[in-house]
């Protein structure tokens, strides 16, 4: 990973000057997974750029107006396609797992941690 200067050298501006880099946690998680899979050698960065630029060229999702959310929706679409094309997962596996998480939430009493085993 990148070496960085000690943060206290510039204590006044350690982060993006115009607010948070990610507007929701899932955006940060999708970003981090992409970087780690790339660093582990599962794909070249130029391959990633091809995938995300294709998503962007296909246009914004109609149900989203926030620019950052639109961007990370493209990001997530691209990551899912790349993961499937590289054989790391598959569309049916991803859909099944998403449905399992949804059931797990619905079966978990409010305030308790949501575990996949609650999917039933």
């Amino acid at each position, binding site marked *: 990973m990148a*070496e*960085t*200067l000690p*943060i206290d*050298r510039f204590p006044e501006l350690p982060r993006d000057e115009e607010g948070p880099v990610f507007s929701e946690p899932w955006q940060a998680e999708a970003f981090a997974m992409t970087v780690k899979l790339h660093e582990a050698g599962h794909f070249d960065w130029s391959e990633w750029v091809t995938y995300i630029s294709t998503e962007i060229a296909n246009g914004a999702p109609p149900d989203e107006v926030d620019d950052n959310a639109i961007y990370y929706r493209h990001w997530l679409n691209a990551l899912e396609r790349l993961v499937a094309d590289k054989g790391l997962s598959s569309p049916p596996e*991803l859909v099944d797992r998403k449905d399992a998480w949804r059931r797990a939430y619905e079966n978990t009493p409010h305030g308790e941690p949501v575990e996949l085993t609650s999917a039933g």
Partner: protein
Amino acid sequence: MAKHDHDHEHTAPPSDPALRVKALESLLLEKGLIDAAALDEIIDTYENKIGPRNGAAVVARAWVDADYKKRLLDDATAAIAELGFSGVQGEDMVVVENLPGLHNMVVCTLCSCYPWPTLGLPPVWYKAAPYRSRAVSDPRSVLDEFGVTLADDVEIRVWDSNAELRYLVLPERPDGTDGMSEDQLAAMVTRDSMIGTGLVQAP
């Protein structure tokens, strides 16, 4: 006792993209393809540790050290790595120098290629369609919206970043900053001045 209250019998699922990310993350973790602590570290690094201050340190060094500036313009990736900044999206860097009569500006028309190790993650407007298209078709009006008005005889060069090359603008050092230390100079350098949508102003 909330047992009788239906609303408390279950937890509302998060948004569709959040569920998709949970699905992807849990599958990749199970398969040993990613590691949870490493994910947290990446998020923390990009949220808190990497940002335009790294690029500002590069610019300030170039302003005070002519030899460094020459190395930076000759081989930006290596010169930036001298200061300890490298990593994903920091390979194949090109630094373009603003001069009297020449203003440089950076865009990624296809997506959002951006030099993460020196500037952090890109601002929202950099990733949005209006900037990606208008920076090329009408850079002068884009600059105007950023509050940058250039004389008509100043040439504007727009550089389109891509997977192979990522650009950083070396802004002009403002007049009246001769006595300033490198750290003081770095503190003046804004992110936008290194994208080319801003100028460095003396305090």
